């Protein structure tokens, strides 16, 4: 069961990543090629996903759009995980007033809705890739910070940490030797699970017209643009970008699920002694 899930997810993800990496440089196709004579054609062999209201190929734009989404998702998740793990680990390891200060900061951030905060960040800059990454990354580190702090707090009280203190280890050595390796798998899992979240966030921003500039393909801007023709019964310019958001999301979640089972302690004791 777990094996089937692993292979399905891995295969889908590999295909998506390959498509995103290989198609744009290798093919000579121009995603921006406008052909008004061909606008809003339903799926045909030459345009498998049809064309949009400017006659551009939806499949090709989906691939380009996913490229943006994946880039935003991965980089933003990395930013969020690094920021969150650092804040959480510092709060958990130092305790006392630094812990209280950092956690109130987290609470303050958490009290504002993600999207609102994201819009605020984007609004300060011109629309583009980096503001979107910053907007997603800087709003998603809160849960990671809480998770890492809780983990560090529980590890700090373990007898093996006490034995290390008694053995003369410095705080730094305990952190590097015992705490970080213990927290890393969980923080990594949180990072992977954040990639789909960040993809959705980017799409939402773009859909609202705050993310990528309108002419540049992104799954969010495509859905946004396709919205108008949807009422006329032309479903393909919105459906396919939507699927391109959902399928990689599920594949990443599937991989994360397998990973979660790997690091859960019950797999550790195969032999009961």
């Amino acid at each position, binding site marked *: 069961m777990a094996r089937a899930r692993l292979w399905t997810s891995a295969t889908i993800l590999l295909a998506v990543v390959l498509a995103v990496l290989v198609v744009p440089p290798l093919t000579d196709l121009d995603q921006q090629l406008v052909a008004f004579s061909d606008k809003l054609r339903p799926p045909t062999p030459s345009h498998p996903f049809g064309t949009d209201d400017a006659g551009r190929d939806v499949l090709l734009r989906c691939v380009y759009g996913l490229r943006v989404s994946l880039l935003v998702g991965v980089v933003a998740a990395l930013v969020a995980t690094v920021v969150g793990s650092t804040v959480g680990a510092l709060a958990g390891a130092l305790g006392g007033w630094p812990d209280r200060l950092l956690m109130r900061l987290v609470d303050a951030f958490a009290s504002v809705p993600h999207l609102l905060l994201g819009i605020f960040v984007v609004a300060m800059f011109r629309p583009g890739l980096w503001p979107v990454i910053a907007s997603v990354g800087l709003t998603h580190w809160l849960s990671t910070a809480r998770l890492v702090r809780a983990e560090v707090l529980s590890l700090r009280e373990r007898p093996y940490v006490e034995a290390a203190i008694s053995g003369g280890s410095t705080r730094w050595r305990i952190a590097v030797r015992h705490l970080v390796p213990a927290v890393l798998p969980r923080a990594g899992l949180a990072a992977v699970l954040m990639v789909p979240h960040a993809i959705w966030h980017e799409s939402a921003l773009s859909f609202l017209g705050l993310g990528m500039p309108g002419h540049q393909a992104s799954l969010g801007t495509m859905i946004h643009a396709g919205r108008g023709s949807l009422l006329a019964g032309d479903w393909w310019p919105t459906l396919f970008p939507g699927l391109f958001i959902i399928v990689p999301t599920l594949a990443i979640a599937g991989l994360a699920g397998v990973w979660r089972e790997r690091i859960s302690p019950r797999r550790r*004791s*195969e*032999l*009961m*002694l």
Partner: protein
Amino acid sequence: MSPRPVTGQPTTPGPAADTRGDPSPPTDPRPVLSLRHLTVTFRMRGGRAVRAVNDIDLDLAAGECLALVGESGCGKSVLASALLGLLPGNAVVSGTALVHSPGTPTAPLDVLSAPEKTLATRVRGRLIGLVPQSPAAHLTPVRTVRSQLAETVRELHGTPRAELRAATERAAARAAFPPDHLDHYPHQLSGGLAQRAATAAALVGDAPLLLADEPTTGLDRDLVEHTVDELRRHADAGRAVLIVTHDLVAAERVADRVAVMYAGRIVEIAPAPSFFGEPGPRHPYAHGLLQALPSRTFVPVPGMPPELSRLPTGCAFAPRCGRATAQCTTTLPAFTDGTACHHA
């Protein structure tokens, strides 16, 4: 292995002991638990196989308490988990473990080959009651003892709501749990009362066999004595009690018979009085283990138990045994007349 007599055990079931009536006839000759060639092998990564329990034969009669003792890692906990079907997925079990409810016409059930559904509906709680290792961790902290006990009663007997309260109180009374503490939460109970609450839940299904896996680990001496005395009481009430423990002092206090396990095999089974008193254990390992007690010579058995994945040929204890001869290193001693040693 020669058939061991199962009648004439030190205690016979007390006819009035079971408050639910239907006292089991003391003449039922069949043992409550009968293990034959019980073997548990763990398949490890890289194709390795580790035999944690090896060819165990054991009988346990109603009203009898048997203590299974041995060093950590000798396989005694694996044996207990095997009986409840709670082994991890890489364990392969063979042999038979027949559990029989005395006084009932149903044939003994082999719990090793029973499917999970049978284990859940007929075995756990109904044929085998588990007295847990740490009762405090076994009880849900967010619910009262009454609500947890009532749930167990309803699950096992299907008692209608109107009678549930009385049935719950009867269940508590059987483990001598004070009725005025039923509405307490587990953290409000002392260690002894938490143990009784967990035992009460184990007794609800009227299981003829009670299995206690390390019931005394981490308890102070008073609580150890209290816990094993409770188990003794349930044996005297006609149940068969199997205690898995490393605590020889507790075993001496409670057991009718002692089985010593070493490297997955039982190396000696003896009546408790002759094991702890005169003439003492016959197997050199059992002798060494008993002598390691601080109240005796306090000298450890030399060396460490062998790796279960790399057992020596012949007797597994031979490398640590002062009496080992050439025969011991080549031939596995058969279990005859209560012990498995070439020199006993």
